[in-house]
């Protein structure tokens, strides 16, 4: 009966900060995606073309970011690498999200033994540090894009299962689900028609946040040689290769390192910004 609940003291700066965060995150992420897509149709040079005679040229003398120890154009490698890193990250998040959310929704709908078993398995996966488990899996299955995706997706599943389950449980407690049960609808129909649409925004926010983590993990995997197979460029491997030349050609480490850092920052800002934007309490 009282008016819509409002914060008695509203955070004066919060709305503007949240908008700034979301805008910046979105801009950076869009920028990276644009570069990645562009790399499919145009790059200044062929990134895998070796030109020994032009090796280790500093930036701006031969290409915007110079050349590496094999004479490959760093800018082109960064562009191609962006596509590889982004697509692996995106695929693994999509895979983890689909499987994880489905499991979470199943747990909330069935409860009982299924719920307990699935959650305990997720706890087990959670207990392992993500990077290490990804490395283990990738090492077991051999390197390459597919195993990298599976490895990363594996530790995404518990995250989405947990959040899918808790948000789904909240929806199951709502009166409109009770009304649907009175309308004789079964658990599957309710999960599909009522639960999924109402948890979608929270799942998407989580996906944006996990994307950042996936990128970082992918960089780690390729740094160790377990990700994208050579000669296809990837940021992680560029970092690994740059180690020998750290003293003489620091730009070889800086460029991919900054690329990873900026992209992950953008994804984090996007995820946080989205979460605040979609949180009903922040809307005044």
């Amino acid at each position, binding site marked *: 009966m*009282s008016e819509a609940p409002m*914060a*008695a003291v509203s955070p004066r700066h919060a709305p503007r900060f949240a908008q700034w965060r979301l805008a910046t995150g979105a801009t950076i992420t869009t920028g990276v995606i644009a570069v990645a897509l562009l790399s499919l149709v145009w790059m200044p040079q062929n990134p895998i073309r070796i030109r020994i005679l032009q090796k280790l040229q500093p930036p701006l003398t031969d290409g915007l970011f110079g050349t590496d120890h094999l004479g490959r154009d760093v800018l082109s490698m960064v562009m191609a690498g962006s596509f590889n890193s982004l697509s692996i990250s995106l695929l693994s998040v999509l895979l983890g999200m689909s499987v994880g959310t489905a499991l979470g929704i199943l747990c909330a709908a069935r409860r009982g033994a299924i719920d307990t078993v699935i959650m305990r398995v997720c706890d087990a996966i959670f207990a392992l540090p993500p990077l290490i488990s990804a490395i283990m899996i990738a090492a077991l299955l051999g390197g390459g894009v597919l195993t990298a995706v599976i490895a990363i997706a594996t530790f995404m599943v518990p995250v989405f299962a947990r959040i899918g389950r808790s948000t789904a449980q909240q929806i199951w407690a709502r009166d409109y689900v009770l009304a649907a049960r009175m309308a004789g609808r079964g658990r599957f129909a309710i999960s599909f028609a009522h639960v999924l649409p109402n948890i979608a925004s929270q799942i998407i926010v989580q996906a944006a946040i996990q994307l950042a983590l996936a990128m970082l993990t992918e960089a780690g995997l390729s740094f160790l040689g377990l990700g994208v197979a050579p000669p296809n460029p990837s940021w992680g491997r560029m970092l690994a290769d740059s180690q020998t030349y750290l003293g003489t050609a620091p730009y070889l480490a800086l460029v991919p390192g900054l690329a990873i850092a900026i992209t992950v920052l953008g994804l984090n800002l996007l995820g946080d910004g989205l979460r605040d934007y979609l949180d009903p309490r922040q809307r005044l």
Partner: protein
Amino acid sequence: MLRLDSLSVDIAARDGRDVRVVDGISFELGESETLGVVGESGSGKTMLALAIIGLLPAIARPSGRILLDEENLLAASEPRMCEVRGARIGMIFQEPMTALNPAQRVGVQIAEGLILHRGLGRAAAREESIRLLDRVRIADARRRIDAFPHELSGGQRQRVGIAIALALDPRLLIADEPTTALDVTVQKEILDILDELVTDMKMSLIFISHDIGVIARIADRMLVMWNGRSMEQGGTADVLRAPQSSYTQSLLAAMPRRSRGGLAAGIETRAPQ
């Protein structure tokens, strides 16, 4: 003691236009008096309460004057308002859990204000807290003082909320729908407690509710609000027995017969023009 002079509150909406949620409210309230504010949802009654205690959200802009003992609260600085809040004006809410910290024992929460504002030592504050719990009729106060909020019933939590508001002996207590979430038998006790406090502690009370029956029970004077405006004000008995405004008449007509009691009704329910 309290005088409102044409108080208005404007809220800046997202599209830039202002929405006036409180529109030119004026009234006077003396010591040991209760004012009941009646209105439906959206009438602006909660905004009115927040304006008086200085807790309006950042997007709300008040205008007019709120004079507490001749001091204009709207012109006061934030540090001054911090002094006023608690010590001169207390507030209790519909949902007592908004005022209670679920992780702290209730005694600690009552004592907090005493220690911070009145400089009491821990032992003295604890004794005073027990006395306050007795005042709000919590049985076995000496033991209950160490309870956590979730260990208490809804009615007991609301009483703790009142105790916290009373701790600093405020001149004015604002109660925003304090009994709406409570059972009717518990509500009766809370109203009795508030009634006693107003008389014994020479406190003034502004009681906000949508329930006319409750207002009739607790208020000496009443203010009927609709859409931010004052539709009618006056002594409770006068307003209820001989309502001048058609809106008040329609509110009375909408009440169930039992709640209306012996008062005349029979006017069609319609929104005011």
